[in-house]
């Protein structure tokens, strides 16, 4: 199998896109380190993988804290050996509000979780990859890294920063045969808001998804030309491709997996 004997560390792997990526890597032979801040969610991902005959272990970690990340990288190494593939997927959404009204604490928090967690994970894991002679890093960006949107400004800014970090790191690590890429999900059916502590009433979530699909002045005016919202599995396929041997000449790129949503 393509990922036999490969160790993959995925952050935010307890749900949504991270979980789909974890399951897909495991189906293709990888040993998967399932990192999440939520123990129960991480365990669920691991159980699903094991029941299907795959190899996985749960690691509970708050990747927005450097000390926790250093411990995570060491623990994964102890369990599975050197990490070959790092998927920086953990992230949070925020309550919708005008970008004019966002307070300092909120700005700092979204940058801490969505951006600095990736800095910390890369700093902790890349030395292992350099020693191993290569590696793959895939970051979860967003269409919000490319297209500005109403009332989720800090999220857009954090993801634009992730996208540019991806390019800068790709440039620096090219000499080590380590590629660094991103996926840019469009509207994807996950529990991101709920997991970020900003749940929506059931009717609200459905109305939002309907707006995303059909096109909405305040979200994406063109909707989703391909006619459906994204599934976590759509993102997982792109992540796994970018982590594969076949993608060895691709670096510093972002694949927008968005049903054409960001072409506005």
């Amino acid at each position, binding site marked *: 199998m393509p990922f036999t004997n490969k160790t993959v560390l995925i952050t935010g792997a307890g749900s949504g896109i991270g979980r789909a990526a974890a399951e897909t890597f495991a189906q293709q032979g990888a040993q998967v380190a399932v990192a999440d801040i939520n123990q129960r969610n991480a365990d669920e991902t691991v159980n699903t993988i094991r029941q299907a005959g795959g190899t996985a272990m749960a690691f509970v970690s708050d990747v927005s804290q450097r000390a926790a990340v250093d411990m995570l990288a060491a623990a994964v190494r102890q369990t599975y050996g050197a990490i070959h593939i790092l998927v920086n997927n953990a992230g949070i959404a925020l309550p919708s509000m005008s970008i004019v009204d966002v307070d300092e604490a909120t700005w700092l928090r979204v940058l801490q979780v969505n951006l600095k967690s990736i800095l910390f994970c890369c700093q902790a894991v890349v*030395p292992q990859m350099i020693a191993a002679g290569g590696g793959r890093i895939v970051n979860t960006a967003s269409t919000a*890294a490319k297209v500005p949107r109403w009332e989720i400004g800090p999220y857009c800014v954090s993801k634009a920063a992730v996208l540019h970090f991806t390019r800068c790191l790709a440039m620096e690590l090219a000499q080590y045969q380590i590629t660094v890429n991103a996926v840019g999900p469009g509207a994807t059916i996950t529990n991101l808001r709920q997991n970020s502590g900003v749940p929506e009433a059931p009717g609200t979530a459905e109305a939002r998804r309907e707006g995303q699909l059909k096109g909405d002045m305040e979200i994406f005016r063109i909707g989703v030309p391909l006619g459906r919202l994204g599934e976590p599995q759509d993102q997982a396929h792109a992540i796994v491709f970018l982590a594969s041997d076949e993608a060895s000449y691709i670096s510093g790129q972002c694949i927008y997996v968005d049903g054409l949503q960001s072409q506005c």
Partner: protein
Amino acid sequence: MAVRERVAAVTGAASGIGRATALGLSRQGARVALCDLNTSGLAGVAATIQGAGGQVRMVELDVSNQEQATKGIDSIVQAWGRLDVLVNAAGIASAGQTSRGPVLSISEPDWDRIMDVNLLGTVYCAQAAARHMMRQRSGRIVNIASIAGAIPRLNAAAYGVSKAGVRMFTKCLALELARYGVTVNAVAPGPTDTPMLGRDREGDEDPQLRERYITGTPEIFRLGVPLGKLGKPEDVASAILYLASDEAHHVTGVIFNVDGMAQLS
């Protein structure tokens, strides 16, 4: 409204692009508030403006502190009754020992300092200005991004990422303020002959560095500057003055390169 009646605020006005912009706005007749952490650094600029008969005030604020940024911007409106133009020119190229090194060795405090000044400093001043401009239903905000926020460079990730954030913040704010008739744009300088450019990683003056920016090196912009010269602060200020003018009323959410074509892609 003619420029001569306008009230403008410029952060980072003591040197480089901020200074050139403040002088330019004043020449057009605007009253200019010079904002900086260290007001003593602004005295020379203030004296130049006053010597030419312009109106100026100095505002001491740390852009990276939301409360100070808000109070500082509010004080301009209290004194002069309105705010028509904000130019966010405060920025730093490096912080501490590690910010201009490889990503793997950047320390958290150095990373934070770059982000706090370049990105969040721009955010906090723009937020404070936006509240007044929304009420006025007019205004111009111009941020300083960089082509380094669009194309990756070696040993400049913290700076580049902060400027990538400024680019997206500019677009998000422009989108939200469009309905109030307030425009938000950014200029993206390429290599520009400012005090920030000529210093090496340790902060020492390096006379070779300017030439290397023009010819291009793997470590900086590989292409160099096709126009064959560095930009001057005044070149960037000219673009800022246009974006701040009445004539630019239908231009918003734009990142305007002033780079001698150093950015190809």
